[in-house]
C-alpha cells in the first residue's frame, strides 16, 4: 500500500509536468466544467500559462518525493496534498478554487499533525488550522465580492469586470484576499504559525509545504494582482514591498540565530517568500510608468519562487535523511556529515549555495535579476516607486548578508568539521539509493538552472510581459558572466595543486590541549555576535546555571541556554486568548436541544428573506 501511494504521487507529478508543458505551449485551455443551479457555484477547471511554472515546480517536487521516499508512512495524505495543490492551480472559477484551496488546507493539516501525540505538534497544528481557516474565509469573501460585481464566477469574467469597472469594492476584495494569501505564504505579520508547523511535519511533507504550498500562495497573490483584480492601485505595491521587506529581513534574522535545522529552514522560507513578494510589489509599482521593467521584475519574482521551491525542498529532504541517521536535527549535535552522508551532504551543499544566492547557482541568477531590476527602477518612475525600490534594495541586501552568515553556519557546523555525536563518523557511509537520487536530481536542477538561467527565465519573463501587456523583455543578459566563474576555476586549481604538491596533515593547534569534537565551535556560539548585534529585535534571554560543587573554582556542571523571544508572539497569544473567550461565550447558545436549533434555523431563514426582499 505504501509503495502504491508513492507511485500515485509520482504519477501525479508527471501529470503536473505534462500539464505545465501544455499550458506553456498552447495557452489557456479549458479542461471541463460543471454547471450548478446557482451560477456562483459553477466549477471550472482549465490550464493557464500563469499556473504553468507552479504546476511544473509541483510536478518536479512530487516526482522527487514520490521516487525518493518509496516507503513512507504518510503516503496517502501526501498524494492527496499533491492532488489538491494541482486542483488549486487548475481551478478557473471561484467555487472550484475555494474547494481546492480547502482540500489543500485539509491535506496539509493531516501532514502537519502527523505526530499528533506530541504536545508541540498539537499546538502547531492548532495555530495552523486557525490561520488557515481565517485565510480561507477571507479569500472566499474576496472572490465572492469580485464575482458579485462580475455577475459570473469564472475567472475570465472576474478579470473582465475588474478591468472595466473599478471602485472601492475592488480594494476591499484585494485587502481581504491579500490577508488570505499572505497568511498561507507566511508573510509578516501572519507568519507566526509557519516556523512551528512546517518543521513538525515528516520531511517529504515539509519539503512540499515549503517548496510547493508557499509557491501556490504566491501564485494566489500574482493571480489576484495581475488577473482577477487588475489593474491594482500602486498603494498595494507599496504594501507588498513593505510586507515583503520586513518578512525577508525578519525571517532570515530568526533563521540565522536558530539551532534547529528544520525550524531554521522554515524561517528561511519566510525570507524567500518575502523576496518574491518584494518583486511582485515592485512590479505593481512600475506597471503604469515602466511596463517593460515591471515585466522583468515580475519574471524575476516568479523565477525566484521556482528556484526557492527547488533548493528548499532539497534541504528539507536532506534534513529528513540527517534526522533518520543521526536521530536529531539540532545543529549543536551535528557535525562532519560530509563523511557519513556523502550524497546527502553534497546535494545539500549545492542547495545551500543556491539559497545563499552564491554564483553560479540558480538563487544567484534570480536574486541578481531582481536586484538589477530594482536598481534600474531607482532612476525611473515616480517618487513613490523610486523610494520603494530603494527600500526594497536595502532589505534584499541586508537579507542577503544575513543569509550568508546563516548558511555558513549550517554548512560549516553540520556538514563539515568533526562529528559531535551519533553515527556521523562511525557507521558505514550512506550508499546511493532512491532518496539520495531524488536529492541529487533536485541539486542537478539547481546547477542546470544556474548555468543556463535563460532556459527557465525566458518563458517566465514572457509570462510576466503577457500579464502586464508589453513585449517580452530581453533576458539574454541574465547569463552569468564568464569572469564570475574565476572563483570556481581557482578552487579547482587549488585542488589540483594540493594533489600535485601534496599537503601535510597535522593535529589542529589548540593551545596545547587535545582538540576534541567537544572543543569545536557550536552553532549557538557561531550566531552569538548576531544575537548581540540585533538584540533590539531578537530580545535574547540567557539562562545560566552553575553547579558549583565543593569549590566555586571548579564547578561540576555549567548549563547555558539562550532563547530568543519572537516579537509578535505575545500579541498573538493575547488575541488568541480573546478569541477563545469569545468562543466560550458563544458556546452558551449551543444547548444541544434539537428544537432550539430548529428555532435558530427558522430565525435565520426569516432574516435572510427579510434582507433579500
Amino acid at each position, binding site marked *: 500500500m505504501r509503495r502504491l501511494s508513492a507511485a500515485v504521487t509520482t504519477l501525479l507529478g508527471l501529470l503536473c509536468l505534462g500539464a505545465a508543458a501544455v499550458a506553456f505551449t498552447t495557452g489557456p485551455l479549458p479542461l471541463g466544467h460543471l454547471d450548478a443551479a446557482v451560477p456562483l457555484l459553477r466549477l471550472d477547471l482549465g490550464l493557464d500559462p500563469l499556473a504553468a511554472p507552479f504546476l511544473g515546480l509541483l510536478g518536479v517536487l512530487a516526482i522527487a518525493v514520490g521516487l525518493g521516499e518509496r516507503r513512507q508512512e504518510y503516503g496517502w495524505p501526501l498524494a492527496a496534498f499533491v492532488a489538491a495543490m494541482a486542483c488549486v492551480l487548475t481551478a478557473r472559477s471561484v467555487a472550484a478554487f475555494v474547494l481546492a484551496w480547502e482540500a489543500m488546507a485539509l491535506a496539509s493539516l493531516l501532514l502537519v499533525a502527523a505526530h499528533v501525540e506530541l504536545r508541540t505538534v498539537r499546538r502547531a497544528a492548532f495555530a495552523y488550522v486557525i490561520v488557515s481557516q481565517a485565510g480561507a474565509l477571507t479569500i472566499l469573501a474576496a472572490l465572492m465580492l469580485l464575482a458579485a460585481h462580475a455577475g459570473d464566477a469564472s475567472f475570465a469574467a472576474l478579470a473582465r469586470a475588474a478591468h472595466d469597472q473599478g471602485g472601492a469594492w475592488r480594494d476591499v476584495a484585494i485587502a481581504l484576499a491579500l490577508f488570505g494569501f499572505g497568511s498561507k505564504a507566511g508573510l509578516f505579520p501572519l507568519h507566526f504559525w509557519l516556523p512551528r508547523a512546517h518543521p513538525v511535519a515528516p520531511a517529504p511533507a515539509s519539503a512540499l509545504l515549503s517548496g510547493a504550498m508557499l509557491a501556490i500562495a504566491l501564485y494566489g497573490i500574482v493571480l489576484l494582482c495581475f488577473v482577477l483584480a487588475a489593474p491594482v492601485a500602486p498603494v498595494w505595491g507599496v504594501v507588498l514591498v513593505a510586507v515583503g521587506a520586513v518578512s525577508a529581513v525578519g525571517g532570515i534574522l530568526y533563521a540565522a540565530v536558530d539551532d534547529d535545522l528544520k525550524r531554521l529552514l522554515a524561517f528561511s522560507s519566510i525570507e524567500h517568500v518575502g523576496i518574491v513578494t518584494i518583486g511582485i510589489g515592485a512590479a505593481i509599482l512600475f506597471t503604469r510608468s515602466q511596463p517593460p521593467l515591471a515585466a522583468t521584475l515580475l519574471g524575476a519574482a516568479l523565477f525566484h519562487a521556482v528556484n526557492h521551491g527547488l533548493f528548499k525542498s532539497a534541504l528539507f529532504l536532506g534534513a529528513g535523511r540527517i534526522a533518520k541517521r543521526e536521530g536529531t536535527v539540532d545543529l549543536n549535535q551535528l557535525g562532519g556529515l560530509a563523511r557519513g552522508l556523502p550524497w546527502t551532504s553534497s546535494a545539500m551543499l549545492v542547495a545551500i549555495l543556491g539559497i545563499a544566492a552564491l554564483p553560479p547557482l540558480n538563487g544567484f541568477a534570480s536574486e*541578481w535579476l531582481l536586484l538589477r531590476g530594482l536598481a534600474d527602477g531607482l532612476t525611473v518612475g515616480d517618487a513613490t516607486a523610486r523610494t520603494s525600490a530603494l527600500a526594497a534594495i536595502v532589505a534584499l541586501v541586508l537579507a542577503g548578508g544575513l543569509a550568508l552568515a546563516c548558511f555558513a553556519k549550517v554548512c560549516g557546523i553540520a556538514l563539515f568539521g568533526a562529528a559531535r555525536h551519533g553515527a556521523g563518523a562511525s557507521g558505514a557511509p550512506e550508499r546511493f539509493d532512491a532518496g539520495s537520487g531524488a536529492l541529487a536530481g533536485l541539486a542537478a536542477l539547481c546547477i542546470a538552472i544556474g548555468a543556463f538561467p535563460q532556459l527557465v527565465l525566458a518563458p517566465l519573463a514572457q509570462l510576466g510581459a503577457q500579464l502586464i501587456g508589453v513585449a517580452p523583455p530581453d533576458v539574454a543578459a541574465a547569463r552569468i558572466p564568464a569572469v564570475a566563474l574565476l*572563483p*570556481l576555476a581557482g578552487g579547482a586549481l587549488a585542488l589540483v595543486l594540493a594533489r600535485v604538491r601534496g599537503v601535510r596533515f597535522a593535529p*589542529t593547534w589548540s593551545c596545547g590541549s587535545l582538540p576534541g569534537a567537544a572543543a569545536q565551535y557550536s552553532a549557538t556560539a557561531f550566531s552569538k555576535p548576531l544575537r548581540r548585534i540585533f538584540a533590539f529585535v531578537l530580545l535574547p534571554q540567557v539562562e545560566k546555571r552553575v553547579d558549583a560543587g565543593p569549590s566555586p573554582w571548579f564547578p561540576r556542571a555549567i548549563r547555558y541556554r539562550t532563547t530568543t523571544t519572537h516579537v509578535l508572539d505575545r500579541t498573538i497569544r493575547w488575541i488568541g486568548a480573546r478569541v477563545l473567550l469569545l468562543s466560550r461565550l458563544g458556546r452558551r447558545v449551543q444547548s444541544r436541544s434539537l428544537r432550539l436549533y430548529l428555532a435558530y434555523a427558522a430565525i435565520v431563514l426569516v432574516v435572510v428573506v427579510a434582507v433579500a426582499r
Partner: protein
Amino acid sequence: MILVQTLLLVALAPLLHGAMRQLRARLAGRPGPPAVQPYRDLARLWTKQAVLPERASWLALCAPGVALGVALTLAAAVPLFAAPPGALDVVALALVLGLGRWVLAVAALDMRSGFTAMAASREMSLSALTEPALLIALLGARVAGAPPLIPHGNVSIAAALALFAFVVVTLAETARVPIDNQETHYELTMIHEGQVLEYGGWQLAMLQLAAQVRQLAFLAIAAGLLAPNLPIALAGIVVLSVLITLIENAFARLRLFEIPQLLTTAIVLAVASVGVRIG
C-alpha cells in the same frame, strides 16, 4: 585590456601593501620592513609545503584558490583601464565577493579550531552589515543618468556620503584598524587573519596574494567613485592609501560590539547618498 589590467593589479598589489606597511611603521617611528617585503614573503611561502589540520575536507583545500579567484574577478571588474566585462555589474560583484567570504568561513569552521571558528563567526556577523553598505554605496555610484561624483571639482553631498560609506567598507574589507588589525599576533583579536590561521606554505601565499589584490581593487573602486578619468583615479588610489594608513595610526581598534554601529552608520550614509541622488 582586461587581462592587462588584471595582471597589472596583481603585480602591483603586494607593492602597495608593502608601501602602506612601511608608511605606517615610519609614522610610528619604526624603520619597518622595506616596501618590497611582501614579494619576498610570497616567494618564500610559495616554496614551502602546506600543512592543514588532520581530516580537513576538500573544501579547506579549495578555499585559497576560491579566494584568489574572487580577488582576480574583482581586479578584472574594476573600471580603471578597461570597461568592466559584459554583464558583470556591481550586484554580481557583491555576490561574488560573498562567495569568497562564505567559502573562507566554512573552511575556517572545517578546521575544528576554536580560534578560526570564532573568527569566522565574527567575520560573517560583521559582513552581514558590510555587504549592504558596500552594495548600496556602489549602486549609488552606478545610478544611471546621475552626474559623476565630482563633476567639476566640487564635491557634491551625495559623493561625500557615498565616499565616507565606501571608505568604512574598505577598512572592513581590507581588515584594517579600527575594525580589524592585520598586524596583531594575538589570535583572539583577529577577525580576517584569524580565519586563515591554520593555513601555511603555498596555500597561505595564495591567501595573502588574494587579500592584497582585493585591497588594491577596493581602493581602485573607491578612486573610481571619485573620478571618471584615469590620472585622477590613480592619484586617488595613492591619496586613499595614505588616508587609510593615517586612520590606522590615529585610531585604536574599536571594541567588537562597537563595530556594528560604525557599519550601520555607513549603511545609513550610503542609503542617504542614493536618496539624495534619486530624490
